[in-house]
């Protein structure tokens, strides 16, 4: 038992768990079997078994049972379910399309139904049931109230509201101005931009995977991996001093992790070239700046060489393509930075403390 626990603890450390989730995500997107009733059941059972068993572990229980963490446990299930459900329907439709039949939605969107009573009633019943649910929840689970506010005693760890923990997790890898301002901003912008970038006429108003593979994969990657998973990590696996703790680890305040992160400039100038850091910031950070420039300006162009991507370029035209590519690359900065941190202890590409510009 303990052995298994320690394995899980080890695997749950971000470098492994994240890689693992990437692989699983890839497989999931690729597989068809998963998006069937059977697949759904299996997933459900696996997750439930995992939680069920883990609850016996005191450390795990302490974290999960916090009143404010309950919604997140719920969230894992709900998102998991709807993810599966959407894909399930999508695959069904795809099969119908292959068979040349209209999609469910199409087949039904023709005949119209009087709103009264069907819709009105079903809505009303929904509300009633929802109310019942909410009251039940409120009776069973008391809202937390901790000791009165005290600016001189900081709880450890002090966490943002759970839905912002994704951002707080990003803080580990990015400077506040990126993690706290730029990236969130770009997320919103990006979401808004979607309808204008996505030129795919197909798949409008019905579930389908085949017809819009790329969009869906990218979106799910952002929504499930970069948003939901980071929230889960931030909630359950980040302990005192924002140190990482496996699900069965005791949150020990005294846990210490080595801080050996270095900037790109240091790696190149000192480790590789073996000379000291140049005085002027521009010279010092030149490589970082070059890299950034390359990443955002050159890379998109180079990528067009790739046939698959070229296809998009043709469809979308230069502006759409570049904007889309920029957003995509920004999103990809996250995993890239994570891996560089884990395996090269990279701190910043660009580190200009002269005016707090760290990337």
């Amino acid at each position: 038992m303990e052995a298994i626990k320690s394995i899980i603890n080890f695997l749950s450390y971000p470098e492994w768990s994240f890689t693992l989730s990437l692989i699983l995500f890839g497989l999931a997107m690729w597989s068809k079997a998963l998006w069937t009733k059977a697949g759904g059941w299996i997933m459900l059972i696996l997750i439930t078994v995992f939680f069920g068993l883990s609850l016996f572990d005191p450390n795990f229980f302490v974290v999960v049972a916090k009143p404010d963490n309950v919604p997140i446990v719920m969230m894992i299930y709900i998102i998991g379910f709807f993810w599966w459900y959407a894909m399930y329907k999508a695959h069904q439709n795809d099969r119908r399309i292959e068979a040349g039949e209209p999609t469910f939605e199409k087949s039904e969107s023709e005949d119209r139904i009087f709103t009264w009573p069907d819709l009105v009633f079903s809505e009303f019943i929904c509300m009633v049931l929802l109310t019942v649910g909410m009251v039940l929840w409120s009776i069973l689970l008391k809202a937390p109230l901790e000791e009165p506010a005290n600016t001189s005693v900081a709880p450890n760890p002090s966490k943002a509201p759970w839905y912002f923990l994704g951002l707080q997790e990003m803080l580990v890898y990015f400077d506040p101005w990126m993690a706290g301002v730029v990236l969130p901003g770009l997320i919103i912008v990006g979401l808004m931009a979607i309808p204008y970038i996505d030129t795919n006429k197909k798949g409008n108003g019905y579930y389908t995977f085949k017809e819009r593979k790329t969009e869906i994969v990218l979106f799910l990657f952002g929504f499930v991996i970069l948003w939901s998973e980071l929230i889960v990590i931030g909630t359950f696996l980040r302990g005192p001093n924002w140190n990482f703790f496996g699900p069965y680890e005791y949150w020990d305040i005294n846990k210490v992790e080595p801080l050996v992160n270095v900037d790109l400039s240091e790696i190149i100038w000192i480790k590789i070239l073996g000379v000291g850091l140049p005085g002027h910031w521009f010279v010092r950070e030149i490589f970082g700046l070059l890299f950034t420039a390359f990443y955002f300006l050159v890379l998109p162009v180079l990528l067009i060489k790739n046939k698959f991507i070229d296809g998009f370029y043709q469809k979308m035209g230069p502006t759409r393509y570049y904007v889309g590519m920029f957003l995509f690359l920004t999103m990809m900065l996250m995993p890239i930075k994570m891996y560089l941190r884990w395996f090269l202890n990279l701190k910043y590409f660009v580190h200009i403390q002269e005016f707090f510009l760290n990337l």
Partner: protein
Amino acid sequence: MAAPKKTPDRHYDFTAMNKWFAWSSLALLLITIWMVVEDYAKPWKRLQAEFRELERQKLVEEAEAERQRINQEEIATIEEEIRSEEARLDEQEAELKELQDRLADLDDKVYEADVDARTTKSHLDTERYQYDAALQTGDPKKIDSALATLERRRETYGEDRITLEAYLEERDMVRAEIERKMAGLKEDEDRLDELRGGLESLENRVAGLDKSIDYFVLNAPLMDMLEPQLRIDQVQLPGLYQNINFTSVDRVDRCVTCHVAAARAGFDGEGWEEPFRSHPRLDLFLSSSSPHPYNRFGCTTCHGGLDRATNFARAGHSPINEEQKAEWKHDWGWQKQKYLDTPILPAQYTEAGCIGCHAGNVWTASSELQDTGRELMSRMGCFACHKIDYPAFTDVPRPGPSLERVASKTSPEWAYQWIEAPRDFHPTTWMPHFFFLENIVGELNEERQRAEIKAMVAYIWDRSEVIDYSDPPRGDESRGEDLFNTIGCTGCHLNDAEASRDDLFPQINRMHGPNLVRTGSKVDAGWLFAWLKDPKAFNPETRMPSLRLTDQEAADLVAYLMASRDPAFENLTQPEVDGQVRDDLAVVYLQNTQTIEQSKATLAAMSDRERDVYLGGQTIRKYGCFGCHNLRGFEDAKPIGVELTEEGSKPVHQFDFGHIHDIPHTRHDWIKTKMLQPRIWDHGKESVKDYNELYRMPDFGMSEREAEAVTTNVLGFVKESVVTARRADQRPESNALAEGRKLITRYNCQGCHLIEDQGQAIKTAITDPGMWPPNLAAQGARVQGDWLFEYLHDPASESMRPWLSVRMPTFGFDDHQVNMLLSYFAARENRQAFLSEPERPDRRSLTVGKGVFAMLQCAKCHPAGPVAPGAVSAAELAPSLLLAQDRLRHDWVADWIKDPLSWVSGTKMPVFFSRQDDGSYSSPLAQGIDLPMWSTEKDRMLRYFDSEEELKEYLADADNVTAALRDHIWWGLEGGS
């Protein structure tokens, strides 16, 4: 509703839909009911209902008892009388009837007349106004007519008044008549009511508590929004606040919502358990007559806990031990309140609650444990390493003896032995163990400690001044012994190898000075002689007073004390320690300021002794020895411990429990454990931590009780949570009170004297009560400031109790200290320390005084002249009255003679005047004067009185007599005229 059947333009099957609708609505109904129930069925409601029932039963029993008490015969007789009365009235029915008719008739008339009068009056007022108005116009015609009407009206009004008053008068007469007739009856009825009253009120109260219909209606869910009987009972406490992040929020206590009877008397004794018991000390707390009435102080101010809570767990109850915890978990759903920083103090520490308000006065009246704790802390010298910013612990001298001349007194070998394990030598010493404690493991560390001790001794001797003392004169041991036992040494010193501190708890005054056992193996006889003769000469700051010993006495004492030896502590040697270990320790210190290479060099340059001395100095700094002892080179070193001023408010998570998991993580458990095992939190880290990082808190060898007493205090050191105005004793004098009490603790006055009913520890050493040093109750009221001033400076100057073998020592107070004590005694009695000269009384009262003095035979006990040797056994004598004039307060003596016991409990001074219910005192002398044996006195007094009656009257009045006595003592005694 009529459900349309499924048709093409319908999507759902409606019978199914309706089912859904039905079930979901039902679910909603149920959940709503559940919500209401959840909201209604609060635990405190159950408790209140329960208590109502219990109280009701109690009242029923009381009513029963009352019924037993009431004398039925008496009632019967009265009722009989009533009947007869009524009968009598029946006979006179006719005229009574007639009277009542007249009364009714008159009532009407009065009413009528009254109405008329008032109407006229209102007209009158109007016409007055009209007259004024007319005046305004200035038209004489108008004025005249107005005046005329006004006059007329005034007359009518006059007449109306007369008729009215006439009627009123008549009516009163008739009323009186009727009442007179019925008086007998009324009287009887009143007596009956009086008899039955108690019972009736009881029965009414019972009725009030009956569970009648309206009880259920009023407290029914949703109905109880109006006027429920079960309700939250709260009190707001302005000025007693909670300190939330720099803002203060007044407390709102809801404790009595469940502890219904807390502030009410009569709910104790068997059958009454929490939460339904009365407060055990209603005389001190909660009751409206007590100094801490409930509506001004509430509960959480002293007890702590979440004031607004209405739920057992959330209130923050703290169990006294694991058993209770388990019990509470089971009975009350107790839970640890993670988020409550101020849980209720566990019962054994409740007295910690006093400190918040009373610390300013140093002592807290009647909080024994906390007070003992404070005394322990001053003696153990906690404040010497930890800053504790309360009057009791600020600007007080170092608790330990000065080491600036220790070399003249004992040997380094002894010192080594002593530092290593003080309690081996003196079982009761306050000096703690610093070395060889639980967190020191491994041969290396032990060697390091030996090195440190040796180095410290080296340093101390290096800095210490050496005085050579010649041998003392020969003394007699046995004489020394009874000197020791009789002149008062025993007030502060034990001489007992078996003694243990815990046995003397809480009376610790006799351990003020060191336990003198084994003195012979410790000190140099010559030094001891010099020391006893004049301690201040050796150490100006010492608290050891001079007993004004003669050389012979001193020599005898020396002989006695030096006789107590213990071979185990003689011709000792210091162990050899590995020089390398010593050097390594030294280098570490050198490296604070030097590089590794430099430090090595510096060390190399030192001689062996220099290295010892250097390390010694650093070690003394490390352990903070200078906190308790004067040491050359550390005059202004800062204390090494953490400040404790607000320790009681430190969040629990800031206490380091190390790897200890079997001790509950609470503030009080941490502190107490720390007291008992100061180094325990190093457990498991002993070998990981650096030698100099290990905990340094020494082990005072506390007993459970001592630890609890100290913990009680530390728990009480909390953040301010009471506005100044609401703290205890805010009189201007209260500062004097505090300062005086500090001196009393510092010089251990209570070792010998009874002060504020505490102390006189010497009792345990001197069996004969007659030989006990005096009780200083009401001292401020009794003696004159000037006299006390002189006396405290030089007790030898006066001796009002020559028979006492105990000597009031010379403490060598400076004027400031003496004045402090004076104003302390005065403040205790709300008096001025000094008062003006009384003027001489007339001959008469002097003569009477002389006579009374003789009649009461005062001289039997009070030597009114030089003491006749062997007259009465010394112990039974009273102070000589010759001193009275200089010593006693003129404004007190009379009151004292009137009722001595009320001033000093246990005094031998008898009461001659018996207290009457009205507070005055009666005097027996009026009768006594007739006895033949006092005829001469009688004649002498009669000269000043016109008649014998007058004299007797005079003598019968205690005030006169006592005043006369006082005057005689003041003016009559000199020369024995």
